């Protein structure tokens, strides 16, 4: 496992070593101490090596491995929680026309802890969606193992909720009945299911739309219903496959805030696939970076941005440092730089990181203003009794 990851990263490490510099030792000590599990260890050691090479990683930004004491403490708490999901040596290959097979995922290993928010990013074609579909049980894997709470995953089940990019609400059911669906097929009585469905709708502020049909809702509202429909079954883990990809920028920002709020309130582990790096850093505790053709784990990054997070943080040094690292990992391996870069303002954001470092930052300032404006107009969240037993704090 270690050797494979090493193969993938060898070239990158070379490059970084040549850049040279003194080590950011405090950060590496902290992260090394915090790591305790097979998959993470391998990647952490790579990260360590890299951080030693990277004193001044990108024009004055701190290293993405540097964590403030609060963040460090939060990760210590995270690692102390039980492991929910173990993916070990997962392989997936698709049979192609001439009898040969194309590998889509190769030796993917990682673990998630209870109440962790894990984002998966990678260039197009890295098998992000395949990975999450395997976790959901919608697709068989070729080799390796997926353990959920110690038991192997074979086929879909109500212990894993899934939210798709295309809403997938049942158009013939009202919003309330959509949320009741999972409860009813799992044998709950109608009255009980209805009561719970209404509570869940209250969590996302949609109880007024209980009797509406999905086509009467906006995209953001539909996706909120899809989220609570998945949560109503009280799954161990929530799998989200680019859930906000189809939404406009403003709605997406609001949904990100909303999702964080939901995640804070209930006992749920989230695996979230996205191609939007800002989104990944904004939401995740850790970001799993995959490489393409075949999909392999490049690095599992602990996001050093403190919680609770808001859009205003996207110009903080930690955020920019993490983003720079992600861009490096994802774009460095692409032969054609245009591919995968076009979508979103990723060029502009990379520019913003450099501008920030130079001290003159018109773009960053503009971004900051936009973020503040958005934060101000964010809606009020319903105050609720927490719905499941949440004994410890994720912030």
């Amino acid at each position: 496992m270690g050797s494979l990851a090493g193969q993938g990263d060898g070239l990158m490490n070379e490059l970084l070593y040549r850049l040279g510099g003194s080590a950011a030792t405090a950060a590496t000590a902290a992260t090394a101490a915090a790591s305790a599990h097979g998959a993470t260890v391998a990647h952490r050691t790579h990260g360590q090596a890299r951080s030693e090479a990277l004193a001044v990683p990108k024009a004055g930004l701190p290293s993405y491995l540097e964590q403030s004491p609060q963040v460090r403490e939060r990760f210590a708490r995270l690692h102390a929680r039980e492991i929910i999901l173990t993916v070990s040596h997962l392989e997936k290959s698709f049979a192609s026309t001439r009898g040969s097979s194309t590998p889509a995922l190769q030796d993917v290993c990682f673990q998630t802890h209870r109440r962790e928010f894990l984002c998966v990013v990678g260039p197009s074609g890295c098998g992000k969606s395949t990975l999450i579909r395997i976790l959901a049980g919608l697709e068989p894997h070729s080799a390796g193992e997926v353990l959920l709470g110690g038991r192997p995953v074979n086929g879909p089940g109500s212990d894993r909720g899934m939210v798709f990019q295309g809403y997938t609400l049942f158009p013939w059911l009202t919003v309330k009945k959509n949320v009741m669906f999972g409860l009813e097929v799992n044998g709950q009585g109608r009255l009980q299911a209805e009561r719970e469905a209404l509570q869940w709708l209250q969590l996302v502020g949609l109880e007024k739309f209980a009797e509406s049909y999905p086509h009467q809702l906006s995209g953001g509202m539909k996706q909120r219903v899809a989220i609570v429909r998945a949560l109503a079954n009280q799954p161990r883990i929530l799998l989200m496959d680019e859930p906000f990809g189809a939404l406009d920028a403003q709605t997406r920002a609001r949904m990100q805030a909303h999702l964080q709020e939901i995640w804070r309130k209930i006992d749920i582990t989230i695996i979230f696939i996205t191609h939007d790096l800002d989104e990944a850093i904004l939401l995740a505790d850790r970001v799993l970076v995959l490489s393409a053709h075949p999909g392999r784990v490049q690095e599992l990054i602990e996001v050093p941005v403190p919680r609770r997070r808001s859009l205003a943080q996207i110009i903080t040094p930690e955020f920019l440092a993490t983003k720079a690292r992600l861009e490096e990992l994802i774009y460095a391996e692409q032969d054609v730089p245009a591919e995968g870069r076009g979508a979103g303002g990723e060029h502009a954001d990379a520019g913003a990181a450099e501008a920030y470092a130079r001290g003159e930052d018109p773009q960053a300032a503009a971004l900051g203003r936009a973020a503040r404006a958005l934060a101000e107009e964010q809606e009020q969240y319903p105050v609720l009794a927490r719905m499941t037993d949440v004994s410890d704090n994720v912030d």
Partner: protein
Amino acid sequence: MGQPRWLRIHHPLSPRARLTCGVLSFVLPVALWCLISYVPVLWHPDVRITDPGSVSYLDVGSTLPRAAFDAEVAAARMQGQPPPRGVAANPIYLPTPLQVLEAFYGAFSTPPPTRDGPWLHQSLWHSIQVIFWGYVISSVIGVPLGILCGAYASIARLSEPFIEFFRYLPAPAFGALAVAILGIYDGPKIAIIVIGTFFQQVLIIANTTRKLDPALLEAALTLGTRSRQLLTRVVVPGVLPELYRDQRVLLGWAWTYLIVAELIGTTSGITWFITQQARYQHFANVYAAIAMIGIIGLGTDMVLGALGRRLFPWDRSLGRVTG
């Protein structure tokens, strides 16, 4: 700009324009019919005799082609006899709109030619019953089989190749066989409608079922739905609006087999009326009867369309397609 709205591709019409166009789609053909019927310079290839003159075989009111009429006139003139006289007319098989309208009323109020013969409304009712039972029997088997074919590849593979073969066989080809098996009354007629409808029905509904968004099935699976529930809780409700639309189209299909079906065994129903009237050259009555079938068909479909909008309030595309 420049282009009028109604000429833009895929541009929706306002409700008023929709109504206007809908009415015009009936008014325009009728107007054309009126023009041909009532404007003597248009077409009118025949002559209707108003005075037979010296020609012994002509009667007042009979028609003959203009060339024959002109020959008779010339012949009479040559012999110094009074020539026949007449007015330009359309052939007897094209009655005027007014005649057909009269026939519409007359067909219902005229008693049957024989004492035990059926009135027109009885004939019509008989036809509707034949259609109904043919359609119901076909649907009772065809709809579930179609859904199963659409849902399970194994069932599709087991049944569809044979059905594909069978649907090319013209239903009337089974007429003699049906009479031999089911007698001469309604049995074989219903059988022909079933044969004509059923095989198309299975294939159409199987296709509709296959078009269900697979993401909905996956969503249901991740919510813990088991395989059998998947059929009843997702597949069937998911395809229901489309299936309803298919059924409307197929009902129209069943009607098109009616005339052929009713000719099998003892001729009955509206077909009996049409063949009788054609035999007496009462073509206005024939047109009226044909129009009645159209009106019943379109009326049923409009009622079903309106019902569909009530039954499936979540389906926003319903009502645009008419069968």
